[in-house]
């Protein structure tokens, strides 16, 4: 592992709307991400968990350059991503690729798999026809699909197959980092297993780095090295996977862990768990989790706790005034 991280985010914030209407009224401002800082080392798999609307996908889109942060900085091997893109429009796409949540929606229904996979080979790699043909075959083989599948249209595939095609397309650019945005949540369990196993194999073969976004903790626990817990656009806990699952320090991480159903085990959460996500247009002053937190104290209502290292495990930090014991 080198000293400069592969990817690092520094105080990345993204909000939508804001400003004023021509006639002076205030335009509502939506906070999607608030000052998120984290970094990834080459070869690791970082899990990003949180509930819907917590800013997971916004973060992912920022990382691959589909969106720009409102403020803050994203670096690739110590270099500003924005600069990189300014110099070479396609530079980012050759290093970072994205796998979408809904595999069928991520494939153009009117284009064959061949066309879909060939595009990055032409535009990102600049390969000639023969080289492309060869590459396509290896790609298909690497995601366990037959070459004759190339001539088919997306609707002729099952969800699991379609997701494998999505992975193949991401791999076609030969990236170093793959952002996997809930890659298995739209799939049936049996398909889910296939795709997860495939991802594990690919990582080993190609030395990839994964940013793995999921709401399913049991999946995260299986595939990730470290976990970042996101709540309401803020990073509330960051820890090696074993540390987090053994001993979550943020009350929200704890709630998440307790909520996950396991086969053969009855639920461990009270139905009375109150409270919802705060209104993103009017974020609360203090800790965003205050409404739902059983440990809430007066300080939590006033002051947003910073993300700070905690405890014994290396690389474990939490944003809580009163972390769990």
């Amino acid at each position: 592992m080198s000293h400069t991280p592969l990817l690092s985010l520094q105080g990345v914030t993204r909000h939508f709307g804001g400003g004023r209407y021509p006639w002076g009224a205030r335009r509502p401002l939506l906070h999607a991400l608030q000052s998120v800082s984290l970094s990834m080392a080459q070869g690791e798999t970082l899990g990003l968990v949180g509930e819907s609307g917590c800013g997971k996908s916004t973060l992912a889109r920022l990382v691959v350059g589909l969106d720009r942060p409102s403020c803050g900085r994203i670096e690739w091997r110590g270099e500003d991503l924005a600069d990189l893109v300014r110099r070479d429009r396609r530079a980012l796409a050759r290093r970072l690729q994205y796998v979408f949540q809904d595999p069928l929606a991520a494939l153009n229904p009117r284009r064959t798999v061949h066309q879909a996979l060939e595009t990055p080979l032409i535009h990102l790699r600049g390969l000639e026809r023969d080289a492309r043909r060869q590459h396509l075959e290896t790609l298909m083989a690497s995601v366990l699909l037959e070459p004759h599948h190339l001539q088919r249209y997306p609707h002729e595939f099952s969800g699991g197959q379609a997701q494998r095609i999505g992975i193949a397309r991401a791999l076609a650019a030969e990236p170093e980092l793959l952002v996997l945005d809930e890659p298995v949540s739209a799939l049936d369990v049996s398909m889910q297993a296939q795709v997860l196993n495939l991802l594990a194999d690919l990582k080993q073969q190609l030395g990839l780095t994964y940013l793995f976004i999921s709401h399913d903790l049991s999946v995260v626990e299986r595939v990730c090295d470290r976990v970042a817990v996101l709540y309401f656009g803020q990073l509330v806990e960051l820890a090696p996977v074993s540390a987090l699952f053994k001993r979550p320090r943020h009350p929200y991480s704890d709630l998440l862990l307790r909520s996950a159903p396991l086969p053969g085990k009855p639920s461990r959460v009270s139905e009375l768990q109150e409270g919802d996500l705060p209104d993103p247009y009017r974020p609360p002053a203090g800790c965003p989790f205050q409404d739902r937190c059983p440990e809430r104290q007066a300080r939590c209502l006033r002051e947003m706790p910073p993300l700070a290292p905690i405890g014994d495990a290396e690389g474990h930090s939490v944003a809580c005034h009163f972390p769990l014991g």
Partner: protein
Amino acid sequence: MGRERDDGSRPGAWRLLLNNHLAVSGLLLLLLIGLLALAAPWLPLPDPDATAPVDRLLPPLTPGYPLGTDALGRDLLSRLVWGTRVSLAMGISATLVAALVGSLVGLVAGFAGGRSDGLLMRGIDMLMAFPYILLALAIVAVLGPGLVNALYAIALVNIPFFARNVRGVTLGLARQPFIDAARLSGQSRSRILLLEVLPNVLPVIVITISTTLGWMILETAGLSFLGLGAQPPQADLGSMLGEGRKLLFTTPHVSVIPGLMIFILVMGINLLGDGVRDLLDPRLKSGALSRPLPRTRVERAQTPTLQEEPTSLLEVRDLHTGFSIGRQRYHAVHGVDLDLASGQTLGIVGESGCGKSVAVMSITGLVASPPGSITDGAVWLQGVELLGAPLARLQALRGGAVCHVFQDPLASLHPLYRVGDQLVEAIQAHQDVTRRQAWQQAQALLAEVHIANPAQRMRAYPHQLSGGMRQRVCIAMALANRPRLIIADEPTTALDVTVQAQILGLLQRLRQQHQVSILFVSHDFSVVSALCERVLVMYAGRVVESGAIEQVISAPAHPYSALLIGCIPTPGQGPLQTIPGSPPALDRLPEGCAFAPRCPRVQERCTEGEVGMTRLGDGRSVRCLFPLQAGESP
């Protein structure tokens, strides 16, 4: 259900079109008119422009003039044929011009968004706000009369339709993940627009063409009618109508004949257009746009008789439910039996498309029909056979003794009514109470499912609530009339994991408090095991295993159950198991065991003949010739 066969119709597009009788008659009409128009130069017709003032205004059926003559003694039949030729050519070219320009504007506006979108659409607004005939009049006045100028005018006034329709679709497409994917594949914006967006917009353009073509022919006729189109002596249908209108009261045939021709032509185009629209519009595909009946159609060969007095609250015997799409028959449920005693919870587990939802929806006849229908079996609820019961009886039970909680609470609640009104409606449908009383009951129900501030929430619209709250409202609605049975179809699938846990907890408590039975459908073994005592595992429309939940999880007997459980990631487990292959197509179920093609333990016997349920004791049964023994892995 269904995504896999979404586009199965594509190869047979022509056949589908030909199945539509109206469209076919439109097509034939158009073909006939088109052929006639094309063949005009070779038909034995007199010169359409040859005047014979002496023979003017002859009535139809005059020898030598089948349709009579006009004010200059010109043969109307010949003019009609030649005029149709001109009108068709005009209408088609104007449509194409409008389609080209309008689609381009719409594509660019929808894809670029922001300021350019605003600017372009303001321009389109201006065109639309302008009375279209005046615009056309003014354009022709500027350019001078003539067919080509009239064509431009008509095309211009129709650009907004294409621009608006195409923009709408493009706007939706531009947010699709596959556009992002194309950007990440390194394509430039113009290439994305051309290669990724355009092919998906084309059907909309074709639909718009099919709906505007007739309209354009009418409008061109309108301009010619005002004398701004075809120049004499050339005939088009509009100018024939215009020349004849002065004589409407004395010699009506001179204008009625071209008028009828315009009517028939446009009618043909519209008929065909409807057919094309039905074909291309994804919403209309596979007959989805047929009105679902109040209950699922039941087409049982014979009414089953009761073998013995039903002991359970709910008994389902040999249920067969399927979907007919075109000539295909999809067997979604293929002989399902289930029993549920009072106060019991039963889970049904299976992958998507296994028929679990269809099975439970069939109980109260909520499977959309058409295309669905129940072909065999019987359902007894509290001793009443539901499939044969009259609609009124069924409606009294629905929402009364048996209630549903569905997967997507946002879609399941009416978006336009307040939550309180929807609850009140459910109460008043079954109880003879005043609205005020019902309102109070409803409020109490919200309190019972632990919604804070129930009085305030009663006045909220569904979209103002969070997902968890919406599902609580749905559950409250199910509880409204003290049901005996709640059928919950994946009620937590759309929810976040913390909310899911709460909802499961809520159902658990309600079951205990109200002694209500729950039939719980899920794809997730973990979720089912959190709530249910017994479980059914379904595969390809059949129950393959049933038993107490702990026993099935700890020692599955069917290889499919075992593999399915093995797929679930659990802490400290080895590599995830996978199931090779994919489920069979429901319209081509294999003979014998449906799982045989994917089963690691398959034997020759598995593919021969029906495999029946085997009782294993302990209330367990399995549909397998070679069930797993305890501790054995597949």
